[in-house]
């Protein structure tokens, strides 16, 4: 597929005011990845600028450059026209830049006021923390953002939304002229979102420059004055929000040729192997139902927090669903634990490799044979020769690179660790394999190998579920895609309908599909 790509097209609206903060020519490279490549950004006093882009476009990296967490390799930052440098997070705060991060680290056992002022609490004349002044200031800030929270309350007693408001209060406790909001509404309910919008209006009236990162188009169009689009670490476009519409924004976000690097494969889809009906969970997802056939790759797309991993972990028996049924090969089964899921032929390659996928401090062969010990042993007694044989067979199929099968998994690269986890599950001869973000954080070479192998597995008749937040991967690999949003299935797309635009619009819940 070829989309119309128009780089730097829409910088047609240069506002009359001078930017309060501007980035120019920023480049940031990590080993093997160019996260930002010559990008720029302008934030204006009393205006909201929305930064738009897919996962991995470089939004979070730019936030970290602006808050002194990362140092750019090239390029400069100016505030009020003066060049500045942020070698530390402290220096960014001192220059008046504050950020509400996606996940702010707060301290459960401390009070609300202590959380807000940790590191910059008002001091008494003896150098001790002036508790009275701190609580009074905290109350002021909290009421300023319309939060009805007692500054003396212990943080752990607050709900998720109130914790988020404390994080916002913490960001505002720094006397800042630039406020960065990184997906601030992700954890909030509709009512709290309305309050947040009011807060943003309030900040605008105080002439603060606001950068707003969001995946939700409705809120971008509601509160932003300007937009900037990044894609793959590059600046794609910027302008006034009234000069652009949703389809144009989506196109700028995803526009690229996606079909080249993915393996060509035959789509030999066989009989139905898995049928899920009415799966639900009290808080994470509801009414999930679908079928899966042999040889099929079913993609699950959605924004972070759409409930995809939570559903997959319930299907694998980690958490208990509150309702629903599963059938394998037409026979109804109950899954109460991962052990039962594995016995029924459902296996799960988790997103968090280090913690959930592999046991890093054990050797490769023990990781591979762990779920298959019943087959490599006799009467419950280990047979090492059988273990090595099984481990060798599957790790060689995956072209694992390791010094020996006795090497600890921790000593391998991310891509090779992923191969160990996949080998572990293939050795159980499963019917359905669930891959959760299978190529997240692994190098390009291993990525291609995992994709190629996935295609091979499907060709051999395995049914594959692939959870991915990477649009090219979903488009390149899937026979069919289920898009989830807020714990529900938003859409089911057949191969011909899978395009970046349909994925993004369904994931964001935009009512009329963009063509």
């Amino acid at each position, binding site marked *: 597929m070829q989309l119309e790509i128009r780089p730097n097209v829409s910088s047609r609206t240069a506002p009359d005011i001078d930017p309060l903060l501007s980035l120019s020519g920023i480049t940031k490279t990590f080993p093997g990845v160019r996260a930002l490549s010559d990008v720029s950004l302008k934030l204006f006093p009393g205006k909201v600028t929305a930064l738009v882009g897919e996962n991995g476009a470089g939004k979070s990296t730019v936030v970290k450059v602006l808050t002194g967490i990362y140092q750019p390799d090239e390029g400069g930052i100016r505030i009020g026209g003066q060049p500045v440098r942020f070698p530390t997070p402290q220096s960014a705060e001192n220059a008046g830049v504050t950020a509400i991060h996606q996940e702010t680290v707060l301290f459960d056992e401390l009070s609300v006021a202590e959380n807000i002022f940790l590191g910059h609490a008002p001091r008494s004349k003896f150098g001790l923390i002036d508790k009275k002044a701190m609580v009074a200031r905290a109350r002021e800030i909290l009421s300023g953002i319309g939060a009805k929270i007692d500054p003396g309350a212990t943080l752990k007693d607050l709900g998720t939304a109130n914790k988020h408001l404390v994080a916002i209060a913490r960001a505002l406790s720094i006397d800042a002229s630039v406020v960065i909001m990184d997906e601030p509404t992700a954890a909030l309910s509709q009512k709290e979102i309305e309050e947040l919008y009011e807060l943003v209006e309030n900040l605008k009236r105080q002439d603060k420059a606001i950068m707003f990162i969001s995946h939700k188009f409705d809120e971008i169009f509601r509160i932003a004055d300007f937009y900037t689009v990044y894609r793959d670490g590059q600046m794609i476009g910027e302008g006034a929000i009234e000069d652009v519409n949703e389809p144009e924004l989506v196109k700028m976000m995803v526009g690229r040729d996606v079909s080249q690097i993915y393996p060509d494969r035959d789509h030999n889809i066989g009989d139905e192997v898995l049928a899920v009906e009415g799966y639900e969970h009290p808080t994470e997802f509801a009414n999930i139902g679908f079928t899966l056939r042999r040889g099929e790759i079913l993609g699950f797309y959605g924004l972070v927090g759409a409930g995809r991993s939570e559903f997959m972990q319930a299907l694998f028996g980690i958490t208990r669903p509150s309702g629903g049924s599963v059938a394998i090969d037409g026979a109804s089964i109950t899954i109460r*634990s991962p052990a039962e899921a594995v016995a029924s032929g459902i296996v799960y390659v988790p997103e968090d490799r280090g913690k959930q996928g592999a*046991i890093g401090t*054990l050797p490769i062969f023990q990781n591979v044979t762990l779920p298959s010990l019943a087959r490599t042993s006799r009467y419950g007694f280990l047979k090492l020769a059988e273990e090595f044989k099984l481990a060798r067979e599957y790790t060689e199929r995956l072209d694992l690179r390791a010094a020996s099968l006795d090497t600890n998994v921790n000593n391998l690269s991310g891509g090779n660790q992923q191969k160990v986890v996949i080998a572990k599950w293939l050795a159980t001869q499963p019917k359905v394999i669930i891959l959760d973000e299978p190529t997240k954080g692994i190098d390009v070479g291993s990525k291609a190998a995992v994709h190629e192998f996935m295609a091979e597995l499907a060709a051999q008749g395995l049914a594959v579920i692939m959870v991915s937040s990477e649009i090219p991967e979903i488009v390149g690999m899937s026979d069919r895609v289920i898009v989830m949003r807020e714990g529900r299935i938003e859409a089911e797309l057949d191969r011909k309908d899978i395009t970046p635009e349909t994925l993004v619009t369904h994931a964001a819940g935009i009512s009329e599909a963009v063509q």
Partner: protein
Amino acid sequence: MSSTRSIPDRLRSPIERNLKSWESLLLLVAVGIFIANSFASPYFLNAWNLSDATFNFTEKAMIAFAMALLIISGEIDLSVAAIIALASTAMGAAVQVGVGTPGLIFIGIAVGLLCGAFNGVLVTGLGLPSIVVTIGTMSLFRGLSFIILGDQAYRGYPPDFAFFGQGYVWWVISFELTLFAIIAVIYAVLLHMTNFGRAVYAIGNNSTGALFSGIRVGRIKFILFLLTGLMSGVAAICLTSRLGSTRPSIAFGWELEIVTMVVLGGVSILGGSGSIPGVVIAAFVMGLVTFGLGLLNVPGIVMSIVIGALLISVIALPRLWSMWRSA
């Protein structure tokens, strides 16, 4: 896919790995203490004295084997000595109503298993931290003994019950030493040669990863608590038989000596690594030290100081060694 390159199974042979292990270092320590003892006291190298010395550790070591598995899995049971007290009290009470030796054995084992199951349910069923649960049940189990016995003691155990703590199988080889050896072999096989043992290591290294690999983590931990309770019951039978009486203070403070033995044996207190041979050698080391000091008429309080110093120095030495080498 691409050309198959063979990955070797191992780079170091198991023999080479064993030679460089903690267990071999500990064995050297044991031999050193043995030689030092034989110079320090003329009474040391006497078969009957040495046989007596084994009673210093056999009962504790039986529990230490089960405890080793539990600690490797990332849990701990501090109620083991209190289980001995409760099991011994139950046996003593049964004696008062005329229960015979087979009945007493049944009661000792049953109380041990029940206490272990109680700990296991609280930890695996309710998801409570085992260190807190077993500190609680430590007070609970021993408290029950105190309520039942007060400052009294149960006596009057049947004559044939004495065999378990005082009997000899052959020459200087006591029944307890024989039982210790059999249990050591059983636990070594269980931990090092079975699927169950592999699962214990997997859980101790990364319990989330083990769960995600289809290991029944809760069930295995429950069995480990059950085994620790069972071994405490068996130790209660041996100890009660050896002493011939039950007081509520029986086996007081043993839980710390047992944990010391396990850690001295090279089991990581954080879980995930350790071996049964290591615990066996540690049992002998602790037995030899206490016995040697006893022959030199060193008072008990000094002995516990020595054991403590031994534990800290044996644990600290490898760390100091690696710090010195990297400096």
